[in-house]
């Protein structure tokens, strides 16, 4: 993002304060790619081993994170 210039206030790209928030996008990667965190059977949920429902839970979390970053970095 080195080449973002600040043009006019209305349609300029997000400034540094906003782009800092994009680091939040790393959260879903950390949550799902560190497999030893969740490669276990217990606790089960509705008979589903932890391995399965834990990863499914990350779907709404990832959506939430992306929405937050989208809202903060959106042009106004």
């Amino acid at each position, binding site marked *: 993002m080195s080449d973002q*210039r600040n043009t006019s206030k209305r349609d300029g790209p997000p400034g540094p304060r906003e782009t800092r928030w994009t680091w939040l*996008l790393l959260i879903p990667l950390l949550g799902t790619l560190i*497999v030893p965190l969740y*490669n276990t059977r217990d606790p089960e949920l*509705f008979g589903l*081993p932890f*391995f399965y429902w834990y*990863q499914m839970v990350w*779907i709404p979390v990832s959506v939430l994170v992306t929405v937050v970053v989208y809202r903060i970095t959106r042009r106004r």
Partner: protein
Amino acid sequence: MTFAAVNGVQLAVFIFLFGFVTVLGFVAARWRRAKDLDSLDEWGLGGRSFGSWITWFLLGGDLYTAYTFVAVPALLFGAGALGFFAVPYTIIVFPMVFLVAPRLWSVSHRHGYVTPADFIRGRFGSGSLALVIAITGIVATMPYIALQLIGIEAVLKAMGILGHWPIIIAFGVLAAYTYQSGLRAPALIAFVKDSLIYLVVIVAVIYIPTQLGGFDDIFAAADKKFSASENPGDGVLLGDAAVLGYSTLAFGSALALFLYPHSVTGVLAARSRDTIKRNMAALPVYSIMLGLLALLGYMAIAAGIEPIVTDGKPDPNTIVPLLFDDMFPAWFAGVAFGAIAIGALVPAAIMSIAAANLWTRNIYKEYLNRDATPAQEARSSKLASLVVKAGAVIVILVLDPQFSIDLQLIGGVVILQTLPAIVFGLYTRFFHARALLAGWAAGLAAGMYMLYDTPNAITGKTHFGGPQYALSNFGLDTKVAIYTGLVALLVNIVVCVLVTLALRAANQPYGDDATEPSDYVVEAGDPGVDPLRDAAAAR
């Protein structure tokens, strides 16, 4: 071909749904109608006008293909937890693409780029690098289209329809309406496809477990199967040696997904930068469906489903259709089969359009007809889309289906080698075009060698046994394996950096960069962003 076991009701529902989307496909030419479809912006990108909802259905239909719906449960059925990698893969892909795709959208709209190779041509001023990116894209896409046919074939087999003629008819029809309507056809059909798939999945994951005694019993059955098998790598949890392979496969697949030409086509068809960002937040909803679908593989185990055997080989892709056939009344099984088949048509159409656009823009216009008019471009793409689909049908008819699956595996490793040029290129001009070429070649060679060097103990294959390369090959004392594509990408990047530094030291000049830093952040409505409207205004 036989009809012995065909259920009339099931077949009737299936044919009705298929006929319905065929009509939609032709009507699509007039949907959100343009004055004419005689340009790639219209035929190949749907007028670059799709808003948030259409883009969501289009990209969802494009990325979550019928083959995924059939093959992911089949993987869990056969190997267990490893198959679930599709879920983290489709979770992490969107936050990553959230950063990159809007930049590609902006620069492409600013300069009228239709394909990723168009962007490379403009950014690096190198025809040869653009050609390599285009050919890589076409080569990686072809087997992907063939896989969609395998998805349809699995459904037909489960219905008791054997023989190749239904596939030829299905693809003939698909080719005809794609030819006429371009990207509008899959965009419109995607609404039907996804509504049906959501309906089927919701019914399946609520109804089927109740018939099988709940998830406790389902997982107990899966456990029993895997502990009885001789394969040490299967199980409802990952073995220690498989952990790194699981996460690197998810990560590498996520990096590759948006390098595929058909993903780029879906992104560039969006109306605005904002549309893409919203979609990156909303698209993971499909992953919920994918995760639930994946579990159908275990339900098939619990239900005692045995894959259909053709030519002496069991076809695991038939287990989901067979499960539906077993569990649902005939009419709803027909709906489910229709959903899967239609689910194959949408991505197949988009993929053939994307491959055709690469051909037209980066080979035909670049080397065969430099002064091609927009109408000639559209004509060239339409014809190329027919050739691409015919090619996919021939591949399925002539070659062993396993060959397509191997090719697709290779395709993922291949397309990943375009990452430095496309993704890094969106951010920096540090890399020299010739260095990117060298890195591409080195990554490709390394990837091919490693895939060739991978045996598969379970299937007994000595080469191209899977996408995981054992770290013991590097002299490490471990059973751990890592996703081949990621290793190849690493080789690629290292070569790109080293060769760039060498060329810089030797004062080798860079090609012209047609883009400006501000081009990467422009939004629809900004001056010069809408080539279509600007062209219309100039008339």
